[in-house]
């Protein structure tokens, strides 16, 4: 839902004013503007909820300097999709403690939402979700990442995530001795 910056400034101002009632405009680190449902943003992001409540939302685009446009587009897309989906019972009780509560399974559309992302986009999205305090989106993205690791050897994980093996020979030998039982296909 990127706002087309090619249009005249007057039109953009009008759009923003119109949006004042039920959407907020967010600005990515590279200056792109996105509109998101105010209700969904406040419900899904503790950071945005705080900004909305505290009146620090800028009608011309609230600066989110830490978030690139691709990640912000995904965040906004997720919020808007969420606003349109019927919340399931599992989603309503979000007040349980972060660390001890059983994880809520991603809904089908949420799975699809993260499945289509490239690894880089997933990385940026999980960091954006973390920055914005979006517990549910963190659940969904971290679930996806953990699924990508399950049952894989360290070599396979390095390959999937494009990570360099930075251990020295000695360290690798130490790890191998300590954890040899847990490795296979390695």
């Amino acid at each position, binding site marked *: 839902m990127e706002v087309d910056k090619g249009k005249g400034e007057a039109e953009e101002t009008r759009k923003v004013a119109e949006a004042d009632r039920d959407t907020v405009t967010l600005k990515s680190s590279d200056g792109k503007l996105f509109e998101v449902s105010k209700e969904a943003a406040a419900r899904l992001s503790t950071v945005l909820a705080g900004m909305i409540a505290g009146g620090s939302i800028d009608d011309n685009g609230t600066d989110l300097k830490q978030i690139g446009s691709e990640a912000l587009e995904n965040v906004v897309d997720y919020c808007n999709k969420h606003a349109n989906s019927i919340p399931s019972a599992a989603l309503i009780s979000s007040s349980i403690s972060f660390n001890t509560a059983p994880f809520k399974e991603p809904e089908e559309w949420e799975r699809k939402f993260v499945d289509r992302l490239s690894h880089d986009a997933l990385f940026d999205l999980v960091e954006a979700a973390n920055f914005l305090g979006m517990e549910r989106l963190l659940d969904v993205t971290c679930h996806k990442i953990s699924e990508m690791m399950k049952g894989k050897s360290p070599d396979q994980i390095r390959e999937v995530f494009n990570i360099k*093996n930075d251990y020295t020979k000695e360290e690798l030998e130490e790890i191998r001795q300590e954890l040899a039982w847990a490795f296979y296909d390695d």
Partner: protein
Amino acid sequence: MAGTTSPPPSWSDIPLELVGLILRRLPALADRARFAAVCRQWRRAAREVPLPAPLPLLALPDGTVYSLPGSKPFRFPGCVGYVDACGDWLAFSGENGYFLKNPFSHATVALPQKFRVQDHRRRHAGDETGVRWMEMEDHSNRLTMYKLLYCSPQLVAAFIRIERSTRLAVCQPGAGSRWSVHIGWMFSLSVDMAFHQGKLYVLEESMETLFSIDISVDHGTCDPWVSRVRYVLSEIPSAIPVARNENVTVKILYLVELDGALLMVRRTMHCIFLPGMSIANLIGGNEFKLFRVDFQQSKWVEVTTIGDNQVLFLRRRCSRFIPVSLEEMPGDRIIFLDNDDEDHSWYKVVTSDSCSVYDMRDGKVSAFPPMVSWEQGPVPATWLFPQG
């Protein structure tokens, strides 16, 4: 965070709090271990973030382990040849007696070889405690030890079976100390024990009786000993249904700690006596009932759920509640070994064993992955509960 023009992000730089969120979703110890082996930063992160305990390993006596939930079989050399298990400790019997070894950290704890019993014949009025001890001699042939319980670095407890009786013994770890065997109280052959809020409890099967154990410590040697066995509470009014005809019900009791409460798990199985046979055939029908100790009112209170976020891994000698996520493994279930009973040798000898799961919500029993069965040896399979 990268903008569109920044270089692609590196997964090795993932923030610590996200590592925690990801590792939480990897309940299998093997997956956590492999995560930590990927690169230095991940290894450091995996060590730093506090995590709930991983799911246990299922260890078979031949050294094969399964890292739950459902995995390929691993060879775990540190597990070969154990005789008993307790939490993340395995007990081995070596030339110099029993010792405990942690197969993950490789820590080893020697256990005493010598046993002492209270000498009631010579009570000295002038003695501070009035207790005299004598060495137990020539115990090796007629004494077996089972259910080692590592309570604290100062206290290990075990049941000692001498001929047809069961005694409680305690010691402080270390080759130089001694087991103090309590002979004042003779338990039946089927007992379980648990360490709960700094106190040792013993559950006796025949009467469903719970005892608390007072431990005293020698001033000189710091050797612990059982100074008193206190009756806490007894039989549940609604007892096991009376067996009809040739059908009998076999009962196994377990004592487990859960969230600051002490629980008795009563497992019942149905057996049938075939004509002319002195041993019974198990015909299945596992049922479980849980009872919490209400210390204030001195009674057992039935517990019908252990919660959606927990499962109970049950084994006669080594049981524990483990937190689970709904997704990985639904909660409110008991995972048990089918033939988890070295104490009842009177029913038909079964040669193979496997895991099953009991759902607290509907009482149904189903097979539990890994769908393996194994030959029963002199030592049964066990859960191993790593600290994470």
